[in-house]
């Protein structure tokens, strides 16, 4: 009897333990490990430190959730995730550049739509979600916004007798006239670096976009319904070529990469340059807060996108299809958008957050306030994001280099676009189908 009682007691204890374990594994407090392949530091220095702080803070909010951050390198951001997609195994949350790269993975069935896990209310605060909207779903979360405009050196303008546009924007003729005056005064009008091709791509996203009516207009040429040699798409290369021939750029434009071009502006080597918020902030520090102004890209085209802004979320964080904890992953991404985290983000990086709840009073410099105003008003399109990767690399970046190095004419640049698009269409029938079906 004694032995029988002992057996029953043991069985009861065992069953209670099992029940307890079962509850722990399936309840809301279950231990969850999430792996996050994270990239942002290159765009926003300070982003890694902010993320470390955020993960620690989240642990206090959700003690059962552990986030393992795996920083990603720029050079292998796409290829590393592609390998994960092939193996159908990898992180729970990943980072990719918005639109083209993200949708490329959506089409490979590697991404879970974040709009399935985050409330519409919450997402209505996020900015630029249109960059990753496809088939009525939003596929990733933005974190910050990067805008690119022209920064100018006020002293050099004064020296050459150039007056900055009062409206914040010149016409193309006014821009050329200013370049002429600056050159006559012995000042390099526009400093840039195109060794890596990205400066040319920025001209495409700023000036090339102005002739288009929509991103779908561009898509028509990508899928082969229109021809890239049509001046509608590539006629603007003549304007760029004209500027190069007139000597409006620094002579070593092909010796410098994009960031070195911006540094040259900060070193006072030219009157104007493209600048992201970060680059402008650096120039304000290097040249002095009262020495730098910003203006929008001069008006060149007459398309419906001529007035569109160019702010982009740059990187997108998304949940992978194979993640066993998509809801927990979505909760963490939503946590990044809490007011306290958004403010901490700006303090750590100086880059504005892609969220309506971001405290705008944190931005105190008038130049950066102006940038924020442009970045958050009206339609925002970074056109380069709407190109297949191969076309961006083999046409957008390359055609710009061709013109900057004067190794080809504007007509050669246009022909290169057409040729690269045909090559891409032949080599990627799978991607072509997706691009054809993509209603923008």
């Amino acid at each position: 009897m004694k032995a029988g009682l002992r057996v029953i007691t043991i069985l009861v204890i065992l069953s209670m333990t099992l029940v307890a374990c079962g509850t722990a594994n399936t309840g809301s407090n279950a231990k969850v490990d999430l792996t996050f392949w994270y990239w942002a530091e290159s765009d926003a220095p300070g982003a890694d430190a902010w993320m470390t702080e955020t993960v620690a803070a989240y642990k206090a909010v959700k003690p059962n959730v552990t986030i393992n951050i795996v920083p990603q390198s720029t050079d292998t951001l796409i290829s590393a995730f592609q390998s994960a997609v092939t193996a159908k195994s990898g992180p729970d949350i990943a980072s990719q550049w918005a639109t083209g790269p993200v949708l490329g993975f959506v089409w490979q069935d590697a991404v879970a739509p974040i709009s399935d896990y985050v409330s519409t209310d919450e997402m209505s605060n996020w900015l630029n979600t249109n960059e990753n909207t496809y088939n009525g779903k939003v596929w990733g979360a933005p974190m910050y916004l990067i805008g690119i405009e022209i920064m100018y050196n006020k002293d050099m303008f004064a020296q050459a007798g150039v007056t900055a546009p009062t409206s914040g924007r010149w016409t193309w003729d006014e821009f050329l006239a200013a370049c002429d005056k600056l050159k006559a005064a012995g000042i390099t009008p526009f400093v840039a670096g195109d060794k890596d091709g990205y400066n040319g791509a920025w001209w495409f996203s700023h000036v090339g976009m102005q002739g288009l009516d929509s991103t779908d207009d561009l898509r028509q040429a990508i899928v082969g319904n229109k021809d890239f040699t049509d001046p509608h798409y590539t006629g603007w290369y003549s304007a760029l070529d004209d500027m190069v021939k007139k000597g409006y750029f620094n002579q070593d434009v092909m010796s410098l990469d994009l960031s070195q071009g911006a540094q040259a502006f900060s070193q006072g080597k030219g009157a104007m340059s493209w600048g992201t918020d970060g680059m402008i902030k650096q120039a304000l520090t290097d040249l002095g807060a009262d020495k730098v102004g910003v203006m929008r890209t001069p008006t060149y085209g007459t398309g419906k996108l001529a007035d569109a802004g160019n702010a982009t979320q740059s990187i997108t964080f998304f949940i992978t299809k194979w993640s066993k904890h998509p809801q927990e992953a979505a909760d963490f991404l939503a946590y990044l958008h809490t007011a306290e985290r958004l403010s901490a983000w700006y303090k750590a990086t100086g880059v504005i957050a892609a969220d309506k709840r971001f405290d705008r009073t944190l931005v105190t410099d008038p130049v950066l306030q102006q940038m924020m105003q442009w970045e958050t008003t009206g339609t925002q399109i970074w056109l380069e994001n709407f190109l297949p990767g191969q076309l961006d690399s083999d046409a957008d970046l390359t055609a710009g280099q061709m013109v900057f190095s004067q190794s080809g004419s504007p007509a050669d640049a246009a022909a290169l676009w057409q040729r690269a698009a045909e090559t891409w269409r032949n080599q990627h029938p799978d991607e072509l189908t997706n691009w054809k079906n993509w209603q923008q």
Partner: protein
Amino acid sequence: MPQKAAKTKPLARRSKIEPYLYLAPATILVLLVFVYPIVEIFHTSLLQNTASGIKTLGLTNYRLVFQDPVFWEALGNNGKLLFSVPIMTVFALFIAILLFEHVRGWLVYRGIIFMPYILAIPVVGMTFVYLLGLNGIFNTLLRGAGLGFIAQDWLGSARWVIPSISVVIIYREMGFGVVLFLARLMSLEKEILEAAAIDGANWWQKHVYVTLPQLSGVIEFFVVVELITMLSWVFAYVFTMTGGGPGFASTVMEFYIWKHAFAFRSPGIASALAVVLLLATTFLIILQLRLRRRSFEEAA
């Protein structure tokens, strides 16, 4: 007797199998390391991602590769780089002979000339990026010497980029040739050179008619190794110095393969390109073996 036969039979069978057992680990390793990747690359080169999934499409990828103008441009750039090989061979030979003749401080010179070869290519590449920029050290020196009209954007000009990369490759690879040739020179019988000198041969004749024929084997080896290098080992130079630009002016086959494999998500195209490169390299190796055989036959 029958009992003895019964005992030796398994032994004989074992001795037949035994060598294969010894060879098996190495054979399996070679198959895994060398044969499997080659077979896999061939297989992948026949596949293509289509709208309805991955399909075997025969030689379609090869056709697409040959239709792509960038492929021909990349191949042409590899071809231009091949011209570096005779230049570096002549320079390496000349320097090796000078060192062999024990010019003062030759041991130090040998070390200095070999040093670039042991440096990582990205280090060499990045150094030359700073040296060869429009406002880099090289052009600054030219301007300082009153030769500013020669100054170029050496890596940013479509015309000069391949010759500039060639110079960097020659600078780094030449050290290997010098050490190789010098080692062979050290093993030559000095009496032959002395006899040539006694017979009245001048410096030029001595080396052209006596030294070079004896170096032919090692020269041949160096040339073939460098030809293969120019076809399939220049990625790191291009990647660090120019990224294939401006335009496609410095894009080479390896760089093109890398772009398709890792940036453009087209493993089929990348594999087809890799097969083409492999065949080109194999052709060079066969050529070298044939040349070697012929030179042996002639010597015999």
